[in-house]
């Protein structure tokens, strides 16, 4: 595995409510031999508060950060947060698509942005650049009690012409990354359902209803944990899970864990290092770990117990055929 280094934009959430996402990404990337360099003096990505007011302002805020990356001589920027990602991708899409828009945006900036940076989610870097084999090679521990519903949120792969990653209707990247990390994954139909996003303050009940559907589907799918890649999804499903229960009369108690935290646990890192203590619904009960060797031994024993039965069945089938 070659040493790689990426420009890394953690964004505001990962400095606050989603600190554990930042900690776990840095830990996992380090283990995988990938360096992350933050641009000096980064600022707001231009997400929701800006783009609801002005597309030019939103693009300018994003482009300011992208031009910092250009100055670092990096051509790929990775960000864990889908909102930041979409802000960067939309700015890039708009500025490369229209010279007029590019001029308008650059007029607001001290340092013009020359459109030389491609933004990718950290999930995309892990899935495409690092690869499943490299992930599988790092796995030291298995979590036999865990069954995860991978929840992508609405904008990691959509709209397809801007996101340009994975399938817009049935993404599989996180499923595959988790499976490579030895985690059992449930067939989850609501991978892309809306969690309610930023409406938690103005329309709390609506957000509770939407989050309820996601939580309910995960439980129906037999999962005991939801893996996420978005700080806002995590917040709506985890922090507001109590609200959901009181609004909807449900009794959910399902941990909402960043996929990078689960990877870190599989890599044998300590829960503390991965910020597992920072989530509201504790995952301690379902993340019991055994070493890979122990796990394989158990599996072998199980297979050995099954074998004679299977052989007998096959012989019987052969006989009836002849």
């Amino acid at each position, binding site marked *: 595995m070659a040493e790689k280094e990426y420009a890394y934009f953690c964004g505001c959430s990962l400095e606050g409510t989603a600190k554990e996402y930042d900690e776990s990404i840095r830990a996992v990337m380090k283990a995988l031999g990938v360096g992350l360099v933050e641009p000096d003096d980064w600022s707001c990505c231009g997400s929701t508060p800006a783009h609801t007011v002005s597309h030019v302002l939103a693009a300018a805020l994003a482009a300011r950060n992208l031009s910092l990356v250009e100055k670092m001589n990096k051509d790929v920027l990775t960000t864990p947060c889908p909102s930041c990602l979409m802000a960067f991708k939309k700015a890039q899409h708009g500025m490369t698509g229209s010279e007029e828009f590019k001029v308008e945006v650059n007029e607001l900036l001290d340092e013009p942005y020359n459109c030389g940076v491609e933004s990718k989610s950290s999930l995309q870097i892990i899935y495409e650049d690092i690869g499943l084999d490299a992930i599988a090679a790092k796995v030291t521990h298995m979590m036999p009690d865990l069954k995860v519903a991978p929840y992508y949120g609405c904008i990691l792969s959509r709209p397809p012409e801007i996101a340009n990653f994975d399938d817009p209707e*049935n993404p599989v990247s996180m499923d595959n990354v988790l499976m490579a990390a030895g985690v059992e994954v449930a067939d989850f139909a609501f991978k892309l359902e809306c969690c309610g996003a930023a409406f938690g303050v103005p329309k709390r009940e609506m957000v509770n209803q939407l989050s309820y559907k996601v939580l309910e*589907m995960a439980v129906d799918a037999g999962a005991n944990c939801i893996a996420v890649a978005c700080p806002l999804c995590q917040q709506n499903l985890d922090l507001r899970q109590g609200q959901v229960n009181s609004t909807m009369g449900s009794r959910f108690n399902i941990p909402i864990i960043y996929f990078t935290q689960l990877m870190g646990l599989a890599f044998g890192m300590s829960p503390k290092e991965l910020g597992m203590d920072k989530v509201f619904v504790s995952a301690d009960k379902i993340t019991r770990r055994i070493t890979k060797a122990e796990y394989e031994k158990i599996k072998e024993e199980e297979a050995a117990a099954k074998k004679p039965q299977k052989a007998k069945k096959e012989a019987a089938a052969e006989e009836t055929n002849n």
Partner: protein
Amino acid sequence: MRVGVFICHCGSNIAGTVDVAKVAEEARKMPGVAYATAYMYTCSEPGQKEITDAIERDKLDRVVVAACSPRMHENTFRRTVMKAGLNRYFFEQANIREHVSWIGLDKELNTKKAIDEVRMAVEKVKRNKPLFSTSFKVNKRVLVLGGGVAGMQAAIDCADGGLEVIMVEKSPSIGGMMARLDKTFPTVDCSICILGPKMVDVAQHDLIKLHAYSEIAEIKGYVGNYQIKIRKKPTYVDWTKCTGCGLCMEKCPTKNAYDHFNFGAAPTRAINIPFPQAIPKKATIDPEFCRQFVKGKCGVCAKVCPTGAINYEMQEEIITEDVGAIITATGYGLMGIENFKEYGAGRYPDVITGIQYERFLNASGPTSGHIIRPSDHEEPKTIVFISCVGSRDKSLGVPYCSNFCCMYIAKQAILTKDHIPDSQSYVFYMDIRSPGKGYDEFTRRAQEEYGAKYIRGRVSRIYPKGKKMVVRGADTLLGTQVEIEADLVVLGNAVVSAEGAAQMAEKLHISYDTHGFYVESHPKLRPVETNTSGVYLAGACQGPKDIPASVGQGSAAAAKVLALFSKDMLESDPAIANVNINTCVGCLKCVKTCPFQAIVEDTLRNGKKVAKVIETVCAGCGVCTSTCPCGAIQLQHFTDNQLLAEVNAICQK
């Protein structure tokens, strides 16, 4: 040399944006032009008389008409000059409509360009040589590609007209899509009951020779004289011995073979006869699933076959048939369910396609006509139909309407109520398209008499919830989101071109559109002809079509072939390649580049090797002329001198 130039107004089509009087005036100044005039409709009878009169009066020996595309009226004017005693190749048509007036709005620039077009045509016509057709014999046998309803109709009509017909069908039985249907709209009569007699006609007609389970390997030749190589695929059953008793199918231990006839609605045996009315009613082994092929041992069917017809060693066979015309009726395909990600992409067993549902409805289908949910074989009570799945969806590359889904969904909703009286059908639709005779009344019946609930809107997602499938969509008339808990969901998936349609078009030398459908010669006036003479179209290979339209085209294509074969001899086009044996150096590069294998090596009496064009095979494409290093091979009517004269005409001003 005395050239006459006739400028057509084409009503306002040309005169609206071209100063035709000015064009005529400029034409008069061109060297060699003895007469020039503008006329309202040159193609009309008085317009043509104007030409013949001028030829006589002004002693014209060459004619240029500046009008529409030569594809429209070249033949008209060639006949006109012939009537006046000129060789038909002493005529040139300058296209000042499609190439000038229809594409530019600036009258001054248009007029200038029209003058240039006329100048080019005048320079070319002055260098034209008289050319004469030869005639050749026609082989009055016709090849019909595809044994669906369109192909069968074409074959029966041709054979009834006295022609020998060779029918090639790629699957083990004829019948096509229609043989799979339960009932047909809007009469709800049994599909196989009305198709069966036609299938029997095909099988029993003395003049129709059927090659089932066969494909086209190669097509050589030209109108009147095609040589067809047909690949008979190995069935591993000697069809001369097979009686169609079906014992092999009963005893075959492989019960999970993919059923192509049922579109995978249920599995079948590795040796099977697709359906009870199959023609020929013979068994075929699917080597992808047969244990004898997969595991190398089994042999059950060989043991049970009472006539010893099983032959695991059978090889494919190539046979040759000579025909004079080809009717292409290769049908259509259906977009695979894996494309519809938001509807589960095939992961949910209770989300099926319309044709699969049709097989469940059919008494000879996998469930003997009982409607079931594939997941647990229970009878569904709530059934949701979704129309336009893939169709009219640019993101899936299908911008067009699939033509008959609205109608078959209405039919299936009606049949569902007949099969399960306490069921409720819902239909999500974008628009109800029912323009045929009795069609709209039929969709109303589905709603008013059979209680199908029609919801105008798209479905955004289908997901499982316990044993139910939740269909979530918009009701755009109520302006609200709707969720229906369905037992079964039926997708009206898009009609696409048949598998391998493009490759077949290339073998036939006919054009196809971006979606793989074959292109007719004219969308309104030549709907069953192609631009390759001798090749005709019928049915859905040209675009999505329902049964009456396909049958109509089958008959139309047959009428075209019967008209073609009403003559014993056909005239060849003299605009073909010709070798100047004095300058040919015998490098034979042209032999290699000719796409029609129309050039062969020839030895002159003095022993010199030269290229020789087979006149009847040459299609006049001109590839050889640009290949020849010494300009020895020239395409008649498009020689280097003629084309360069045109180039000079627009460059030297």
